[in-house]
Every structure is written in C-alpha cells, then in structure tokens.
C-alpha cells in the first residue's frame, strides 16, 4: 500500500494522524484563488516544484496530479517487494482513477483552449488518462493500464475493476487506486453548487454546512490468494458492488436508493449478513444531501447501524482519490485492529440519531465496509476483511 494526503505523506504518517484525530484542513496556499481565505481545504503542503525534485520527475507536461500519484505508487511498489519484472509483467494491471486529471492547471487549460494562443507544454496532459499513461511509461508496464472516472466513486470502481480482472484470470495482480489534486476548477465548481462549507466540515452533524475539498493519492496491490503465500497480506477484498441512484445528476435521492443498493449488493457478493459488518467507513462528505441519504440507507439496510465514521473530516473530500485513500484506512484498521475517531462532530441529525465513533479504540474487527458515492448517482461499496 502507499498513500499521501493532507495528514501524512506516507501510510505510517497517515495512521499516526488518524489516531491523533488530526484535521488536515487549512488555508489554500499552492495557487492563487479568491477562496484562499474563505474556504478551508485539505492541501498537501509540498509544492509542485518540490514534488518534482523529490521524485526526479521533470518531464515537460507533468502535472501535480501525476506527481501525487507517482509519490503514492512509489511507496506502494516499495512496500510490496515486487520485483521490477513482476511490476512490468504483462500480467500486472494498473487501474487508476482521477476526476481532475490535468485540469489542476486551470489557467493553462483555459488559455490553451483558445484558438489563437500558442500551445503550452501541457496540451496532452489535461485528460484523465495521462497520469496513468505517464506511470505506464515510467515503470515500463506491459500489462493492461486503464483509467476510470465516475466522479467521487472513481477509485472504488478502479479497485473493483482490478479485483475483477484478477478473478477473471486476465491478470495475476493489479495495482489499483486513484489520485486528485486541488484545482481552481473543482473549487469553483463545487462552490457554484453551494456545497462547500466555509468552516471545517462536520460529517453527519445536524449543523453540517457542506464539504471541504482535499487532495491525495493512494494505491493498493491486489494479488490472487495463491500468489500471496509467504507475503505480508494486509487484508482481503471480500465483496463489492456498483449501483446507480438514478435520481439527479448532482445529488442523491432522499431515501438513498443507490447507496442502499450498493451496500446491499456488496454484502450479497461477500456472502455476509449486515450484522457481520463491524465498521463502515462512510462516504460522509458533510453535505446536507449525502449524509442524510447515506444515513437513511444505512438505517434501512442495517437496522442497527454498525460503528461508522467519515475520514473526510480529517482529509477533506479527495474526489477521485477518496475511494482508494479510504480503502487504505479501512485496511489499516483491520491490520491494527483499531478504529479512528470521527472528528468535528457535535450533534446527530435529529431524524436519524446516528453518531460517528467519538474516540480512538482498539477493537476486534473482521469485516469493514467502505462507501463512495458520486455525481451522476454513481454509488460503490467495498468490503474488506481481516487477512
């Protein structure tokens, strides 16, 4: 595994911060924006130039999104102890996600789009696939490389696609995950929908005002069980599902039809009963709409909702990276048999009475569910189980 977010540059740093209940939100500093002082964001405090230095990545056209992905994937591959041959092998896939892609270069993108401006070095970098094409080249990958974009559930779907490729026998292993960097484009976009909170976000709280955007990247390496003997196995993916809410392009149905179906189908695929889920890493963006719909769906499916929390209160909403970073956190919980506090929460939504877990706790855990719900009604749910 490997990951980077506003609360840590490595998996270990992330874990330390989660235990402490660190909030990664602060002032936007990496690029100028009217919103720097008005909206908290979970920014990784390493400049794009510093990332290039650290990663020895000076190719023209390289974007912050790609650099963050490279940072995380480096840690992932080192942690996996896979040989270079195995990484480049035709039977190793790389399935990634991004919703921002090269659009983090908002001003350059706008300028290049005009007919009479000369092209910048980023002309081929604006799309979502170029990060993974870069990684393919850098690591000489010969296996399948694909990019998925289903808004906020993108990396959950990337993890699912990688798992299915292995299950179908098409590949033996898959590097799966996602990345997104902060961008003027997304800040303005979410702001125009009035779902950004001017304060620190408070998932599932009755006074919640919206989400805080974040950036980050995380990757996992999935392998077949028979190939993993003798290796350090963190967890297994025991179930997954993808369903569509089909209600509105940018909000969820009140009852949370899509979330309910994704969670329920994930349980079916894992052959588990709701009561067997020990913890839910909720999508929990802190918006009025998501938290209410997700709560209603959880209540309808579980009756007695298991312990849950949203780490978006720590790292913000990392969009295309969220499914992957949050998967990483679920796996950390399983490995360490611990749960991290749901921070910045005061009072439950009156209708539901649901409260995220308040404190750090060491506890027996076998199965954890992780939810990711995005624009376009794209709902995904993954279930991880103790190795």
């Amino acid at each position: 595994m490997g990951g980077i977010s506003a609360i840590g540059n490595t998996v270990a740093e992330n874990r330390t911060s989660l235990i402490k209940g660190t909030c990664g939100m602060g002032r936007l500093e990496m690029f100028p924006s009217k919103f720097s002082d008005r909206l908290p964001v979970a920014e990784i405090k390493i400049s794009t130039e510093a990332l290039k230095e650290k990663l020895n990545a000076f190719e023209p056209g390289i974007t912050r999104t790609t650099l963050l992905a490279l940072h995380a994937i480096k840690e992932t591959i080192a942690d996996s102890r896979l040989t270079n041959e195995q990484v480049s092998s035709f039977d190793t896939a790389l399935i990634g996600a991004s919703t921002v892609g090269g659009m983090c270069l908002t001003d350059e993108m706008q300028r290049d789009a005009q007919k009479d401006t000369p092209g910048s070095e980023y002309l081929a970098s604006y799309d979502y696939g170029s990060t993974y094409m870069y990684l393919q080249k850098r690591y000489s990958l010969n296996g399948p490389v694909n990019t998925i974009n289903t808004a906020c559930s993108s990396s959950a779907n990337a993890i699912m696609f990688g798992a299915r490729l292995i299950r179908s026998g098409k590949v033996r292993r898959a590097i799966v995950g996602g990345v997104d960097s902060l961008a003027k484009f997304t800040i303005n976009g979410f702001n125009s929908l009035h779902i950004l909170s001017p304060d620190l976000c408070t998932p599932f709280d009755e006074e919640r005002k919206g989400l805080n955007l974040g950036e980050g990247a995380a990757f996992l390496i999935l392998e077949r069980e028979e190939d993993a003997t003798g290796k350090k196995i963190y967890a297994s993916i025991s179930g997954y599902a993808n369903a569509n809410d089909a209600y509105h392009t940018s909000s969820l149905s009140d009852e949370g039809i899509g979330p309910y179906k994704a969670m329920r189908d994930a349980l079916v695929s894992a052959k588990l009963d709701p009561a067997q889920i020990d913890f839910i890493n909720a999508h929990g963006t802190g918006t009025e709409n998501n938290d209410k719909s997700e709560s209603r769906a959880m209540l309808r499916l579980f009756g007695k909702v298991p312990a849950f929390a949203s780490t978006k209160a720590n790292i913000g909403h990392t969009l295309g990276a969220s499914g992957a970073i949050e998967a990483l956190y679920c796996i950390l919980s399983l490995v360490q048999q611990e749960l991290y506090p749901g921070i910045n929460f005061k009072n439950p939504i009156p209708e539901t009475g649901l409260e995220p877990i308040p404190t750090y706790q060491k506890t027996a855990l076998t199965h954890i569910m992780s939810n990711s719900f995005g624009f376009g009604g794209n709902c995904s749910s993954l279930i991880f189980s103790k190795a």
Partner: protein
Amino acid sequence: MLAIEPSYDDIPPGVLRRMGKSVRMGTGAAMPIVKNNPKPDGIIIGTANSGKEDCVKFLNQIIEYDEGLLTPINFVQSTPNAIAAQIGLLTNNHGYNITHVHLGLAFEFAIIDADMMLNENPLNSYLLGAVDDISNYNYNYEDKNGWYKKEAFTNKPFYETNSPGSIAGEAAAMFLVNGNRSGSIAKLLAVDALHDEDESVMKEKLQDFIRKYLPAGERIDLLLTGENGDSRLLKYYSICESVVENNVSVARFKHMSGEYPTATAMGLWLCCNILQNQSIPGHMMKYAAATTRYKNILIYNNYKGIQHSFILVSE
C-alpha cells in the same frame, strides 16, 4: 467532421437543452435501444473527451467572473460519467454504471468490462457504448499538438494525403450485449490492447492475437482498420495488412467518422452492419479480395501511434 444529429425525440426537451454534446449524442444513441429491449442490467461507457466543452465553458466563466458566483450546469455536465449517468437517469436504471476514460482504449476497456460482467452474470444484458465529441476547445488542444491536417483537402484523397495529421471526428455508438447467441447480430470473439510505439512489438501482439482467438480452421474475411490519413501512422497499418493473409479484403472507415479516441466503437457498429447485410460500401474498400461471405472481421486501430486495439468479431 461534425456529427449529423437527429431530432432526439426520446429525450424530454427540458433535459435535452441542458445537455452537453457528448451527453446528448450518447443518450440519443442509447435511448432507442433501451426503449425497445428489456431494461439492461448496467450501463458501460467509454469516452475520452466528453465534457471538455462544458469544462472549458466553466473555465471561461471562472476567468470572466473572477471566481465569483458561477452557474453550475457546465461543471456538472463536464464530468465524463455524465453520459452513463444521464442514460441511467432517463431510464431509471439502478444497475452497474461505469465510465472508462483511458483515451484511445476507453471503448476497449468498456468491452472488457462488459465481457467480465457477462461472465459473472451470464443471464444479464448490458448497454455498451462510446462517445466523443469535437468542441472548439478540445479541437484546439489536438490541433496545436499536430494531430490534425494543416492543409485543406477533400474527402476523396483523404488516405493519400501523405502528410501528418488527420481530421477531427465525433460520434456515439451504442450496443446491447448479452451472452445469448440467438437473436444476436454479431459475436464479439475477443478484444485486446497494446501500449507501445514499437512496430515490432505491435506485429508480435497482432500475430499472437490472431493465433489465440481466431477459431481453428477459420480465416479472417475482412480487415477493418482505423487508417486515418496521418502519414506517421501508416507503418502500423502496413504491418497489420502484411500479417493478415494476402487474399483478405481491407476496408477503412475514418473518412466517414474522422479521428477521435473512441472511433473503434464506430468500427464495431460498421462490422455489425457488414455482417448483417453481407456487403461493404465501395468507398470503404482499400483492397477488395474475392470474398464470398463475411464471417470473421478483425478490427485494428491505432490511436496517436501508441495505443493499439485489436477486436475480433464474427457472425
């Protein structure tokens, strides 16, 4: 090459007027299929540049209004999953819904996804398709990067222009796929992809593909290629033609569709037509061999010299 759009009677006008071009074309192509068949169990779409037009419209707003209060419609329409989402929304489809965006292989991965879904759920059916559109904006990126012809020309000598670049195209192609032989128009036998600029690697991959997937004792009756008038890419198409036997007909389609990342979806649509009608329009033929019947068709496409796709289709 702009698409000739129909009147989209299946899309409610209030919804239609807010749609970006990709969403409109994709939904418009999908609706007749969804209306006339049992509800598919999922929607699997490939697209590379869908939403770019709305994206840059939103960016222009950001600049013009200096990050003031902006209207969200362009932002919401700028996400590539808007096509699959909109189709799901209009047809109340709660099933599997996904969008693959890996540029010139976006449609190929959509096919692989659909194939895996059908293996996992043999009784299901899925809406599978791809869309890409030309907008002023993404045209400018590609043009500045040298992917379009600089000189003026007409369609007829398109393939003989002997200069770099192609022409921009756009289209939506949608299919209903299931594991059922009966009632089907075509059978997708195999799909594979390669990311490499080296011609010899491409040649080996193509040879392996044919060896592995062409049923024993059968032959390829037609090679349909994505040759696009870009002189820099001719070497790949020459290799492809040399690998396939001498007496195989070769046809091309990008003089009709133009060049765009998910053009192979159009190629697949044409294959279905050819298999159904057992004929190919003269203007598509590069070499017409003496073929009595079209049974197995190999589609080869190359996107920007680096992403290669191989698709084998049969009756």
